[in-house]
């Protein structure tokens, strides 16, 4: 049998003979690739009988074609003649499994439809926001419970996560912040030297790093590093039903998985923010010295004398709130993972995007708040 080609390239011939439509050749899924269905349907409309005596292979696709052509025939459908018993059985099976009429042609587009979809999205978004807030409430309540009963705290886990999200992030946060300080000093100097006000570069660096950039960029880095890790870790546990197993054993996943992560972030993000502030000021000082000739001593004197401590305070106050946002969103998205690998990937990326977005929104709200209270 190896001398006959397994896959036929021979097209199927269609001949109309009076009111008899004759099909010859291979009637298979391969033949269907080149088959002119419109022309065949045109011929079939004038046929009363479809004769397949001359076909030498019929598969499901071919049987479907026959049934579809026969339905076009005269007098409410042509008869199929000349099928072997095996082919007849196949044709009957396919006929029994034909698509129901008008199936798959759901109306899409149209104004009402679009409105309905928009409404559905908004409803879904609002539902997700409510869920997120209720998850936040659940975590806060659990933390409250732990404060009342400190023995419930998983200290080992907290320490482990402190190392993961805090200590291991120190190099990247330091480097990033140092470079930001360098860039600020360099760009600021270029502008300020036009007015002969080079020394104000110290104020520029101090205020922007301490108040905004140090903590904001640290939060963004941590959201990318740790928020995604939280989602992936909890999500894969959810996928393998570990979370359900915990519940059946009477263990609370929020206490065991979520609280240690959130607490670790709340503790470590201010610390990372402090490191970022120091590194940023250092970078600015180095650049000011190299590029503007502001000596480190002058830099220090101006920094200490001219910068309100509140600039640093404002940055540090924001840190725990950013940590809470990143931790809650990372864990919440992880808990939402369903049974398949695709949802894990999708929710991990949602987690990072959403937490960075929310951190920036929160930052804007803090700016308004501090402007109103006047610090």
């Amino acid at each position, binding site marked *: 049998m190896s001398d006959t080609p397994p896959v036929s390239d021979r097209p199927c011939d269609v001949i109309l003979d009076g009111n008899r439509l004759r099909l010859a050749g291979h009637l298979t*899924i*391969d033949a269907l690739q080149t088959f002119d*269905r419109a022309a065949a349907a045109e011929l079939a409309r004038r046929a009363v009988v479809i004769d397949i005596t001359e076909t030498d292979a019929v598969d499901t696709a071919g049987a*479907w074609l026959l049934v579809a052509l026969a339905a076009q025939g005269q007098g409410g459908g042509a008869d199929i003649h000349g099928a072997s018993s095996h082919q007849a059985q196949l044709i009957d*099976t396919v006929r029994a*499994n034909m698509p129901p009429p008008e199936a798959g042609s759901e109306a899409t587009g149209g104004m009402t439809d679009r409105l309905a979809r928009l409404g559905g999205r908004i409803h879904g978004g609002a539902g997700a926001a409510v869920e997120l807030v209720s998850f936040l409430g659940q975590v806060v309540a659990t933390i409250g419970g732990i404060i009342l009963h400190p023995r419930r705290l998983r200290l080992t886990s907290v320490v482990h996560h402190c190392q993961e999200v805090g200590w291991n992030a120190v190099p990247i946060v330091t480097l990033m912040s140092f470079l930001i300080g360098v860039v600020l000093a360099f760009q600021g100097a270029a502008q300020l030297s036009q007015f002969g006000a080079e020394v104000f570069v110290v104020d520029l660096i101090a205020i922007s790093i301490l108040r905004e950039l140090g903590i904001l960029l640290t939060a963004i880095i941590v959201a990318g590093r740790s928020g995604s890790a939280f989602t992936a870790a909890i999500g894969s546990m959810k996928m393998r039903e570990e979370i359900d197993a915990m519940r059946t054993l009477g263990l609370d996943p929020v206490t065991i998985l979520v609280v240690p992560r959130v607490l670790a972030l709340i503790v470590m993000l201010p610390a990372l923010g402090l490191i970022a502030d120091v590194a940023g000021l250092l970078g600015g000082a180095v650049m000011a010295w190299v590029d503007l000739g502001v000596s480190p001593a002058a830099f220090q004197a101006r920094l200490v004398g001219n910068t309100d401590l509140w600039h640093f305070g404002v940055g540090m106050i924001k840190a725990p709130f950013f940590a809470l946002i990143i931790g809650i969103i990372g864990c919440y998205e992880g808990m939402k993972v369903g049974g398949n690998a695709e949802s894990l990937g999708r929710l991990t990326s949602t987690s990072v995007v959403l937490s960075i977005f929310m951190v920036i929104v929160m930052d804007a709200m803090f700016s308004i708040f501090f402007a109103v209270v006047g610090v």
Partner: protein
Amino acid sequence: MADAPVIRVRGLVTRFGRHVVHDGLDLDVRRGEVLGVVGGSGTGKSVLLRAIVGLLRPAEGQIEVLGQSVRDTPPDAYRRLRRRWGVMFQDGALFSSLTVRQNVEAPMREQLDLPPDVMRTLAGIKVRMVGLPEDAQGKYPSELSGGMRKRAGFARAIALDPEIVFLDEPTAGLDPIGAAAFDRLIRQLRDALGLTVFLVTHDLDSLHAVCDRVAVLADRRVLAIGSIADMLDVDHPWVREYFHGPRARAAKIMPPEPA
């Protein structure tokens, strides 16, 4: 049935490291039959299946499917050969990012150049043939029950009307009613599409319901092959235990013991 066997395995040796799974295994599968492959855990039933479809390279031996060697074929011929069989893995192995209909369309999309509406209709016919409800077509594998996933996997395996279908434990993990329905489905599609079925199973009811012949894997080779009635006479501890055990009696392979 005086045809040449559609699958011919001669002197197959497979090993993982120093662990020998098959040692000189011979097997013939005839055209149009349902061959059940049974054996204890770790006797290499699934490994045999993987070797035959070319997922695993055996250490020695010849494997011919439809008269062509699986091992020593040029890639192009192997690709054409591969189209003539379909494989259903244990849990369906559906692509989780595609709906059931897209899963069944996937082989057509990759191998052929068909208009989208034809693919859609043909995939729909295949999904209905395996007895899935109409609304299952648009669902993702994670939204289906285990039995439905297996059916969808079967639909994908027969998407291109193969001549041979390999089924790896199709009824494992199904409830008895679902398993019996799957047995009926195998028989029905075998008759309708003229399939040859290579069925790896543990399920005695399945063996009894659908298999024309049974091959028993033990001691790193095919210990016995024949009808279930033949198996009752085989004198080997495992085969005796398997076909004479309480579960075999429950599956009515054995006449009940006189009280």
